[in-house]
């Protein structure tokens, strides 16, 4: 809750914004713990990746030797077992075996498709995790701005000096250097191409934009 604990005191900055940060962090933790959980680190997870991957086969062999059965096609007598026809006394057995093989093939296809869907789902969750990180960063910036604008000073940005440097005809375009103080910052120097006149609204727009970028960059550092 962002309501003040006492009805007779204004909320502090911490009272107002900390609950947001806490909730964003809790949501991030719920997601991050998930991706570091044993379910995602368990070696057997790789079993549901692409079929005859060497790592998967090695794991199966170590686990219970079933990985060795994947190599049955490399042995002639093993291949012959698969072609043994036991339907001499009962033709329905051959049909049943065919049905088994057909449904097995379909089951393998559907399992692979399901696997692809699971990975898409996992990607969605990774996207959400990344967006939570962006939310945290953006909200952090907003709360910083909120804190900086609590004061009585009507000017968030103060221009202290302006110096235009015109160029020779042989030199590249000159710049106008503007030194500003933004909120509580040390002086920030930004430049504007000399072609943009001070009277042009674009001038101060450029100054303010660059100063704010510089301020934010320094805050992050």
């Amino acid at each position: 809750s962002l309501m003040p604990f006492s009805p007779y005191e204004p909320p502090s900055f911490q009272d107002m914004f900390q609950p947001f940060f806490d909730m964003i962090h809790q949501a991030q933790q719920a997601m991050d713990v998930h991706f570091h959980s044993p379910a995602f680190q368990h070696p057997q997870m790789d079993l549901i990746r692409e079929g005859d991957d060497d790592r998967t086969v090695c794991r199966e062999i170590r686990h219970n030797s079933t990985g060795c059965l994947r190599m049955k096609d490399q042995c002639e007598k093993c291949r012959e077992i698969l072609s043994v026809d036991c339907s001499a006394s009962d033709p329905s057995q051959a049909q049943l075996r065919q049905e088994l093989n057909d449904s097995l093939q379909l089951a393998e296809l559907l399992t692979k498709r399901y696997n692809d869907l699971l990975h898409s789902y996992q990607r969605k969750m990774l996207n959400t995790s990344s967006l939570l990180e962006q939310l945290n960063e953006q909200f952090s910036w907003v709360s910083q701005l909120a804190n900086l604008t609590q004061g009585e000073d009507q000017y968030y940005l103060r221009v202290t000096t302006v110096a235009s440097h015109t160029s020779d005809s042989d030199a590249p375009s000159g710049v106008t250097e503007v030194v500003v103080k933004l909120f509580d910052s040390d002086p920030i120097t930004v430049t504007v191409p000399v072609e943009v006149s001070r009277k042009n609204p674009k001038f101060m727009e450029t100054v303010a934009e660059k100063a704010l970028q510089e301020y934010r960059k320094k805050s992050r550092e």
Partner: protein
Amino acid sequence: DQAVSDNELQEMSNQGSKYINKEIQNAVNGVKQIKNLIERTNEERKILLNNLEEAKKKKEDVLNETRDSEMKLKAFPGVCNETMMALWEECKPCLKQTCMKFYARVCRSGSGLVGRQLEEFLNQSSPFYFWINGDRIDSLLEDDRQQSHMLDVMQDRFSRASSIMDELFQDRFFTHEPQDSFRSFPFGLTPWRPHFLFPKSRFVR
């Protein structure tokens, strides 16, 4: 250098502050945009979840058919036992040799233990298991188990994060629209003061 008067400096500061004020509101809107993206991603996730439910049903139906056929086949009397057993006795050493060569070359660790384990496995297996592709069926059943577990874990965690985000996004911060003019002080104390936060005001008294 061209001289700049104090008046001009003040005017520039005024203009710059207006822009900063606008950017503050943009920053707030930026938070809301991210919130919208999160909500949109969540909607897409729900659609994907529905697709997963349908795919799971289809997969499980076919798996059940497969197991059903397997059981029926197993019920047949072993008319080919002798033929299969003979082939199996010749298959086993080749399979063991091929597998151990692969393991030594690719997997490398613990060949001795794997060799003993494999010997035991082959002695306990039956050729009928091969004949009905029992290894492929078992592999599918294991995949099914793993996939169910993976989805359960993801669902559990995401629902926790989701309920936290729902609560967060219901807050007034995300539902309230910022004012549009300079000097609106979106977070400042004056002149715009959210009354519920400042009960000293006459309105609240």
